[in-house]
């Protein structure tokens, strides 16, 4: 019996002819890819937000330029640039030190880095807004009490920034998750890639793309539920919103 004749549940199931396991593993990889890129984006985004507010003009301009570039080019381009550009770059750097050229970096690494670099540009905006939303008087009260920079940040600024940034970060996360599908082009077996493969090999594109849609929706709605819960817990002091 050819795969085209198999019933949908068998194709999507976990049996010998089923793609269920592959699809679920793809979804797991998508989640891992998104988490990795979100983390990269958070760290770099926080640094960029700090740089934007820096008194050193060149640093602030550099951070602004980064945002303009990363938000102004297609994400797919960044993914391709890193995946195909990285081996050459690595070989050049290795060459400088007289080392042999290393092989291509894994697709997961370049993929999460590419999406993370884009995510950082958006997260920097979010963090910047969050920092500006902390009233000056909150910091002055901390200064007047003799709190040093770390204590001020940890006890006063950070909790308030988190409150302001969680809702927009949830948004960035959702974009991040969807952008991870672009990494399919590098052959990484995340959800988009495996559904493409399954659709091609079974010639049942509608079935598999619909299945992928359901899995993506499950990931996005589950994660926004998680975000809502964290927000609710962290925002008691600000009242309902």
């Amino acid at each position, binding site marked *: 019996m050819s795969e085209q004749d198999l019933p949908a549940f068998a194709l999507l199931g976990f049996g010998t002819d089923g793609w269920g396991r592959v699809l679920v593993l793809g979804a797991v990889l998508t989640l891992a890819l998104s988490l990795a890129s979100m983390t990269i984006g958070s760290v770099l985004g926080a640094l960029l937000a700090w740089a934007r507010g820096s008194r050193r003009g060149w640093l602030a301009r550099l951070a602004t330029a980064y945002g303009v570039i990363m938000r102004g080019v297609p994400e797919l381009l960044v993914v391709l640039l890193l995946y195909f550009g990285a081996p050459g770059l690595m070989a050049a750097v290795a060459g400088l030190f007289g080392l042999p050229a290393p092989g291509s970096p894994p697709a997961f690494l370049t993929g999460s880095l590419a999406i993370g670099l884009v995510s950082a540009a958006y997260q920097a905006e979010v963090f910047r807004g969050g920092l500006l939303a902390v*009233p000056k*008087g*909150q910091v*002055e*009260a*901390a*200064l*007047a*009490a*003799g*709190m*040093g*920079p770390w*204590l001020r940040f940890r*006890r*006063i600024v950070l*909790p*308030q920034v988190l*409150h302001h940034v969680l809702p927009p970060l949830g948004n960035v996360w959702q974009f991040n998750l969807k952008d991870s599908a672009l990494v399919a082009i590098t052959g990484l077996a995340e959800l988009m890639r495996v559904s493409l493969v399954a659709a091609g090999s079974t010639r049942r594109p509608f079935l598999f793309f619909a299945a992928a849609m359901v899995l993506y929706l499950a990931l996005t709605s589950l994660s926004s539920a998680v975000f809502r819960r964290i927000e609710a817990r962290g925002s*008691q*002091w*600000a*009242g309902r919103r």
Partner: protein
Amino acid sequence: MTDAIPVLRATGIEKSFGGRKVLKGIDLDAAKGEVISILGGSGSGKSTFLRCLNLLEMPDVGEISIAGTPAPLVRDRHGALRVSDARALGSMRARTAMVFQGFNLWSHMRVIDNVIAAPVHVHGMAREEAVERAHALLERVGMGGFAQHWPRQLSGGQQQRVAIARALATDPELMLFDEPTSALDPERVREVLDLMRSLAAEGRTMLVVTHEMAFARDVSTRVVHVREGRIESMGPPAQMFGPDASPAFRAFLSA
């Protein structure tokens, strides 16, 4: 016996904002237990002066010392003052306390956490001890039942009383009040002034920038009139509010 070392000594404080000279050289000493009301029109520089004392504003020129310890300031090569020792600055600020016009309670902390934050995190007091003291202080400012409230749930007067409890929590040597009643509804002003009156009575050293003439006249030990960035006149309230007051201060009072 008088304390030989003043709690505050400020000498030659000058400050400009964008080329406009706001403070043109202010000298002020405060002895232990003094309550000094600083009066003046808007834009006279009185709040800026107060904010220079704990270096929330950096003066361009001048010297400050708190109970004999000079503020850690040095001149950089352009002649501007800058902080020479951030830790010393922190401990100087920790020995003073400030009450703001806008209260500035930390809005993400409950009332009790606002009061214990500096004792625990800046002064290293044990949490249990800090909590116990905080409850006593909240009781003292009439906010005993509000330890678990969030600042946003309180009226302006209540927030300011909590802010005063927070200021008292570190047992400061000098308390700076920056227009503490100016943001309050008229009917709430009284509860804060009464509290400040009781602090004065227990011998706290206080510098109060205010528009409350009754407080200045009845509570303070000295009244300072700041005009155009200088101390125009100062003296005990009986003198300042009496017939021998300076014409400029009388003009300010009648304005």
